């Protein structure tokens, strides 16, 4: 069934569908914490694990994580990757202007790891186990990027 390219129609679809997501009760609490430069998590009444950012359910215990706890601003870099590419929306890859570090950060032994940018360190010098601390924007507004990045403590 091999056929020529000309056989096909190749329509351009100039449509980008828009979605508007409600962030729900728990992420709302997280951002309220940001307004006071606090990192909040929700604690499971079953296994006492703390989810950061907070969410309603602990899937392991099937329990509602009603209790909010404040986490320290300093933690350990548990795992990291150095990005040499960036992925645009829609999954297009392009080379990064310069290498950058993404890290999974442990703020507390009971807390889930938080994925964030790690700056202020040469990517080739990054090591797992490094101590890192939160760096906030000067003006916090209760928004995603108030917690701007982590840097070596």
């Amino acid at each position: 069934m091999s056929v020529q390219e000309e056989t096909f129609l190749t329509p351009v679809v100039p449509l980008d569908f828009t979605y508007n997501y409600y962030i729900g009760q728990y992420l709302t609490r997280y951002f309220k914490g940001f307004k006071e430069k606090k990192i909040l998590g929700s604690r499971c009444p079953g296994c006492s694990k703390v989810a950061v950012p907070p969410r309603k359910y602990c899937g392991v215990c099937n329990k509602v994580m009603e209790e909010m706890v404040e986490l320290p601003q300093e933690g350990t870099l548990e795992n990291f990757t150095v990005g040499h590419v960036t992925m645009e929306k829609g999954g297009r890859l392009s080379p990064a202007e310069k290498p950058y570090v993404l890290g999974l950060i442990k703020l507390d032994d009971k807390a889930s790891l938080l994925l964030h940018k790690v700056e202020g360190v040469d990517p080739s010098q990054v090591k797992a186990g490094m101590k890192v601390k939160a760096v906030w924007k000067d003006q916090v507004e209760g928004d995603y990027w108030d917690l701007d990045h982590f840097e070596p403590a």
Partner: protein
Amino acid sequence: MRNVAIVGIGYTPVFVSKRRDVCIPEMISEAVENAFKNSGLTPADIDAVVFGNMHTFEGLNLPHLWSADFIASLGKPVMRIATGGTTGMSAFHAAYYHIASGLHDVVMVVTYEKHSEGDAQVGLMGIITPEIMAMLAAGIDVTGQKGMGAIGGGSAGGISYQATSYLHHSGAGIEHIDAIAAMERRNASKNPYAHLKDPEATAEKIAQTPLISWPIRFGHVCPTTDGATVCILASEEKAAKIADKAAWVWAVANCASDATTGNLIEGIITDPGEQMPATIAAKKAYERAGIQDPRKEIDYVEIYNGFAHQTLMFLERIGMCEVGEAHKLLEKGELEMSGSLPVNASGGVVSTNAIGTSALNRVTECALQLMGQAGEHQVEKEVHKALAHGWGGLMQYVTITILADKPKKL
């Protein structure tokens, strides 16, 4: 073959146009919590989960992954089913086969839609957008201003052609569509999980809503709803242990027509009024359930009716009455909760449409009627056998489920 029963049902506390207070998994978890309350089961009792919704409506790919922690599914098999409007019932059928195959004993079906976060119109258009764009390039005018552009001539789209065809072949009039829409809105007012409710609805009131595209009026069209439904199924042995009351699956069946195969012009819709898949699927379901005369043997029907005329049309297509008879039954009051062939006591899809749940709600509503748990919208007659109908795909796919108040003799 094993017998399978419905042993638990959970809805979100409300079905409304916008749940601004919760994110998607938070909303779904409410229905899961209610299903556990309703059934007395715990997450540990669940062997497997089947999950369904229309994912382009919310722009989420395989949303069961994000929801996994909220639906008591960790460590369990989770299967995602998606067949369009029928998704809820297709998911139910998958859960049925999980158990009928002998591989699992207790399976939970989770369905939802949060229409307020997306756009159902564009989501639906997403089915055929590339074809429409190709047609534009070929000179079609999709606004229907002139030439070969009349894709339904308005926002009701191909549905209008279906309704016209139905009226022509049945001898019914637009007043009957008004009347069935009014009946369902009245029924919805007695169902706490319905969205559009109007205890005072009349055919005359519906007839005052503007025409979109003859014979479809605004009053004939389903709303877009936020909500989630969960249904727990169990094998016969397990059901005996965990449920005082259960609704038993006697048959499941489906049939697909063809949306298009490169036939761009005709491909926009298929078989507008004929809906042969409904007839074929129903026939198969009757055979599997051992039903000789559905009109005598089936006491209650839930029809998937995104548009009001479909209640009447599909009753005829699935052989619950003769062609041309449905509107006469409606006139005589037989389709009401007090009638001899009560239909959509829940208010139907035309009153509540969180799409992923819509076809499952047809099943759960039949189950509530069979178990006598439908509360204010419980029908007057005794219900021993009930039929749930689902419709979707690109207007070309039908699912049927037959339930009874007793297990089937195997």
